[in-house]
């Protein structure tokens, strides 16, 4: 009986190794950095201009915004930025802002995009909630003659006007390079991915893998997903701490509040916090990092990028050619990658933990939303 | 051992089925020991025996659901060591189980041809199917609308649909497993007429039943099994009912119904003009120490009367008094508190907690007595279960044994034990011996008499007329939710009961 159980377990282990071996053959292995389709696509699109003369028309414009919607503070601030910027542009430019709330779900968003298109907008700004699910609606919009600006995420089809975002592969690599530099090229790290299978998560992790592979002095102890959840990130970090203890010289994190869980696990264990490649740009993490004197590098994904998306939409309707990929780091100030040295400047003691900067609109609007610390 | 009275004809051109030397054991426990069973084409062959005698195992082997360990089956001249369900059906063997296997929301015609619908290129020929269904029902001399959903039919008519289904499969041999258990009066007569017409058409019927009077009414051949062995297989002619009982149980018939103590006390239960959706102005009185039989057809309101008295169903007018005090609301809890107990007709669905240990079944209504501040006092439960086991001679491995692993008779005893613990003054028993072998039946009858002697009043609802006649001090007959008549023990006969249950017999 015992032997049987052992055999079954061994079998399962083999399955496990099989899966892990297959993982290493994924399209993002170091040998294939150059062949990374994402990287290729982003680099190529940055160089390609889209001729938008066919969309040129007189204002005011009817702009459709299919946003992530009610789900978290990042999205709430994204929406506020959109509302504020529509007012800033004025009624002569933005005649109407058609808004749809996807509640962070692709299933909800797909029919919403159909409904928006039925209202015949001049342009569609889309925060896609799933790269596969939203491909068809995007193609339909383009076929209908509505130009599509992808904002903060991407779709599987290439049939859109332009995408506003940042080079996530480069961000992932930047965070990994920070760790390599901190450790002087020698040491062991653990890698906490976001959600495997989600494009943004996979691309960042691939960037990190490429850097670690190029530095033979770095040992990756383990790679596991934290599913972009603080709770799961903390559980995982606790187990890693129990398993590897102070063997861990650095932690790479794929973002979205996981780093708070990682720090929390270290604080509970009373262990010294190693450098973290993948701190947050949220005010909560910045405060935690200052209080505990943490060494980290962070990347940004500002909700203020919606203003850039709206600018781009207006440009398209004015018949101006636009590049097919627009990196917000080049246009919005204070959205570059940074390390703890600059972190002090990004932290705002008046903001609550949920604020993700930079905030372009006036503080009163932040206060009205309940984002200021009540004294 | 019993004498083997097997009388197989030497030359058998008309033997349709011959099961030879069948043995079968489950996990080492023999269920059938060297049983041979043969049927003559176009005859009704009754298969009788107590529960656990091996009847169902033998029929399961015939249906191909179970495989025999040894033996041979010869059907229509072809010999098999075992059958499969598919093969059995294809060769013309159909079994109609007690739990009918119909799809309630499909029509009669759809049910009859389920899975074998007349079709052209996969499209069902509805007209063709309805026509064929109507013809089949015509052969059975029953009038059923083929477009009616089966759920709208009475149980008796559903049974006819099952038979029609068997005929549509060109069945030569139809096994009916306790077909009468769900029928009463006229419905039973209809079944017999149908069986006669089937036999006239050359179909062979194996008729499994507990009710010996039915066996004597329709069977030409009788086979008796006991404890997995063949006791006798002979022509019904020349056999008497007491002989048959003796073969089945090893106990003479007159001992089955013990005599009534005959002394009755004050009225304990008075039902005055009770009406609700299913009952119309029902009044009756039950005295201490008395057994009042309630007869009537299924659906005549007998079970509804029991539920109304017990507070399981609401009453719209009239009142129910227990020991002079009226029950104020429709609540089983209040009825139990006032000294009423209900042994429901469907034991597994309503009486027993099959997944729970015997202990938890028995002590459920008296937990309050066995506890302090909601916490059970140690040891007391065991005493209660021990006492009940001794009193009712429940055959069980331990108090922790789950109730589902008991035989039907022992399960019924567990349900009774549960109620006896509440020391009721009135026990309502709805079909108290349904699905129980004769041995356990006898024990339950004796227990009822003991309770009567202790002054407990029993309201017994039963579809088995011999039981009603044998056990009741008085009999009320129900029809259409009303009391259709009352008979004294002396005046009661099967005919008198049936007359009141079916036609417009005068209310006494």
């Amino acid at each position: 009986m015992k032997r049987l159980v052992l055999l079954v377990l061994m079998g399962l282990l083999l399955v496990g190794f099989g899966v892990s071996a297959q993982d290493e053959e994924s399209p993002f292995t170091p040998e294939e950095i150059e062949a990374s389709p994402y990287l290729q696509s982003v680099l190529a699109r940055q160089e390609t201009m889209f001729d938008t003369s066919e969309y040129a028309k007189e204002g005011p414009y009817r702009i459709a915004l299919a946003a992530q919607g009610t789900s978290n503070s990042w999205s709430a601030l994204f929406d506020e930025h959109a509302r504020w910027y529509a007012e800033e542009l004025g009624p002569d430019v933005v005649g109407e802002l058609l808004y749809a709330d996807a509640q962070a779900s692709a299933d909800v968003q797909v029919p919403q995009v159909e409904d928006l298109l039925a209202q015949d907008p001049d342009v569609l700004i889309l925060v896609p909630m799933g790269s596969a699910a939203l491909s068809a609606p995007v193609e339909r919009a383009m076929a209908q003659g509505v130009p599509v600006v992808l904002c903060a995420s991407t779709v599987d089809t290439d049939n859109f006007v332009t995408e506003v975002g940042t080079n996530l592969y480069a961000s992932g690599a930047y965070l990994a390079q920070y760790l390599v530099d901190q450790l002087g090229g020698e040491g062991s790290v653990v890698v906490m991915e976001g959600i495997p299978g989600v494009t943004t998560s996979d691309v960042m992790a691939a960037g990190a893998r490429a850097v670690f592979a190029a530095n033979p002095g770095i040992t990756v102890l383990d790679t596991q997903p934290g599913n972009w959840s603080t709770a799961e990130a903390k559980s995982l970090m606790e187990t890693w701490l129990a398993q590897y203890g102070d063997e861990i010289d650095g932690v790479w994190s794929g973002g979205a509040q996981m780093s708070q869980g990682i720090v929390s696990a270290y604080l509970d264990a009373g262990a010294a916090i190693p450098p973290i490649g993948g701190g947050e740009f949220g005010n909560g993490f910045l405060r935690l990092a200052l209080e505990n004197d943490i060494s980290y590098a962070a990347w940004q994904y500002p909700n203020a990028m919606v203003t850039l998306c709206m600018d781009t939409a207006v440009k398209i309707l004015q018949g101006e050619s636009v590049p097919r990929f627009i990196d917000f780091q080049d246009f919005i100030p204070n959205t570059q990658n940074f390390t703890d040295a600059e972190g002090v400047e990004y932290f705002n003691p008046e903001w609550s933990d949920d604020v993700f900067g930079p905030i372009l609109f006036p503080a009163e609007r932040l206060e009205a939303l309940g984002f200021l610390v009540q004294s | 051992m019993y004498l083997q009275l097997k009388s197989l004809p030497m030359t058998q051109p008309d033997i349709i089925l011959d099961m030879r030397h069948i043995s079968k054991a489950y996990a080492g426990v023999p269920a059938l020991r060297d049983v041979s069973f043969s049927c003559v084409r176009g005859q009704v062959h009754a298969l009788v025996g107590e529960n656990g005698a091996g009847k169902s195992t033998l029929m399961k082997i015939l249906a191909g659901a179970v495989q025999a360990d040894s033996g041979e089956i010869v059907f229509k001249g072809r010999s098999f060591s075992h059958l499969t369900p598919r093969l059995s059906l294809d060769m013309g063997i159909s079994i109609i189980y007690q739990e009918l296997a119909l799809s309630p929301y499909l029509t009669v015609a759809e049910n009859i041809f389920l899975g074998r619908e007349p079709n052209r290129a996969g499209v069902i020929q509805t007209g063709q199917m309805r026509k064929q269904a109507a013809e089949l029902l015509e052969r059975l001399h029953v009038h059923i609308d083929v477009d009616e959903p089966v759920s709208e039919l009475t149980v008796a008519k559903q049974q006819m649909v099952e038979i029609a289904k068997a005929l549509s499969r060109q069945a030569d041999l139809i096994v009916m497993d306790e077909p009468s258990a769900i029928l009463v009066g006229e419905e039973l007569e209809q079944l017999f007429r149908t069986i006669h017409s089937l036999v006239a058409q050359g179909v062979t019927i194996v008729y499994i039943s507990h009710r010996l009077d039915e066996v004597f009414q329709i069977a030409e051949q009788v086979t008796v099994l006991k404890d997995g062995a063949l006791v006798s297989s002979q022509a019904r002619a020349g056999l008497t009912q007491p002989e048959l009982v003796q073969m089945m149980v090893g106990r003479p018939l007159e001992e089955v119904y013990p005599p009534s103590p005959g002394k009755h006390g004050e009225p304990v239960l008075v039902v005055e003009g009770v009406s609700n959706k299913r009952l119309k102005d029902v009044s009756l009185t039950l005295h201490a120490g008395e057994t009042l039989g309630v007869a009537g057809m299924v659906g005549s309101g007998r079970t509804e009367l029991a539920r109304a008295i017990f507070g399981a169903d609401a009453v719209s007018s009239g009142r129910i008094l227990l020991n002079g005090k009226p029950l104020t609301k429709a609540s089983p809890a209040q009825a139990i508190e006032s000294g009423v107990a209900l042994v429901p007709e469907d034991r597994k669905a309503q009486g027993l907690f099959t997944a729970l240990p015997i202990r938890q079944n028995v002590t459920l209504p008296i937990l309050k007595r066995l506890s302090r501040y909601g916490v059970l006092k140690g040891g007391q439960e065991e005493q209660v279960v021990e006492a009940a086991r001794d009193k009712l001679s429940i055959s069980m491995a331990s108090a922790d044994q789950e109730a589902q692993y008991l035989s039907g008779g022992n399960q019924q005893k567990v349900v009774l034990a549960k109620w006896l613990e509440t020391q009721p003054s009135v026990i309502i028993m709805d079909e108290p011996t349904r699905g129980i072998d004769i041995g356990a039946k006898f024990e339950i009858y004796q227990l009822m008499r003991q309770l009567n002697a202790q002054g407990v009043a029993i309201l017994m609802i039963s579809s088995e007329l011999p039981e009603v006649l044998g056990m009741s001090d008085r009999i009320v007959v129900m029809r259409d939710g009303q009391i259709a008549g009352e008979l004294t023990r002396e005046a009661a006969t099967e005919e008198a009961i049936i007359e009141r249950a079916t036609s417009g017999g005068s209310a006494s």
Partner: protein
Amino acid sequence: MVLSSVPSKTYTVRRFIVRYGVYVSLGLLLLVALLLTPNLYSQQTLTVLLKQSAQLGLIAIGQTLVLLVAGLDLSVGAVIFMTSVIIARVSNGVDSALPTAIGLSLLLSAVVGAANGLLITKRKIPPFVATLAIFILVQGAVQAYTRGVPGGFVPQGLSVVNQSTGFFSIPVVLWIGLTGLFLFVLRRTTYGRRLYAAGSNPAAAHLTGLAVDRLKVSAYVLCSLLACLAGVVLTGYVGYVDRFIASGLDLDAIAAAVVGGTLFTGGRGSVLGTFAGVLLIQVLGTMALLLGLTIQAQFIIKGLVILAAVALYSLARVD
């Protein structure tokens, strides 16, 4: 006297599997761990393992209770999220406001549980549908209240749930204590007996004078209260309001109860089996991590274990 009432050998084996299968499996797994992943037995790993088991375990006790009355509660995830939002909003980081915040959470959780129970008993809505609807409703109500912005702070004081003394921390003590309490309640009290009866056969329980509907509602209320307690522990654990705070835990809790021998059909199961089921799932997860298996392999193993448990129990059931 009657042959069939004497339990056969297979019956005994089957009953053994149903009763003790999960404990034997857990024991075997712990032995295998001795060979494959001896570092499972380090003080720190065990401490972490127990702490994480406690979070799952608190939810699983509640699921066991509703499974016993042939139910299911899909709304626990929403109750946990609601609890964390209330704690952060109401206390706003102030320790002294913590009792008020927890009290309010418990109150609202009880309301959610009662709503589940009443929909199922009075409106006769199947548990799957009713609790899923309540899940969506509560999640929606919380989001309407926060407008997607969690807001507020989790008080520092709540981080006591993270402190361990040896193997023990507040969540672990709560988990073990509540398992013991419900073990006693289900086995030795009239309430427990009645709950089993109501779950095993509601019709018979009604005809034995039990208030079946009230018993069922009570199970849902208890399940919600336990989920709320898990929510308090998780909020202290995470230190932030996290929309995915209960992700995976809600369904894992049902899995733990099922692996522990609790049946979907009601009336059968125990919190001790669930306790072992929780440990089994957590030990497997930790072992997989210690072996460095990929997440895909971990899912496959978890799925296989649940399937194996269900297959074992259904094989062992006598019909």
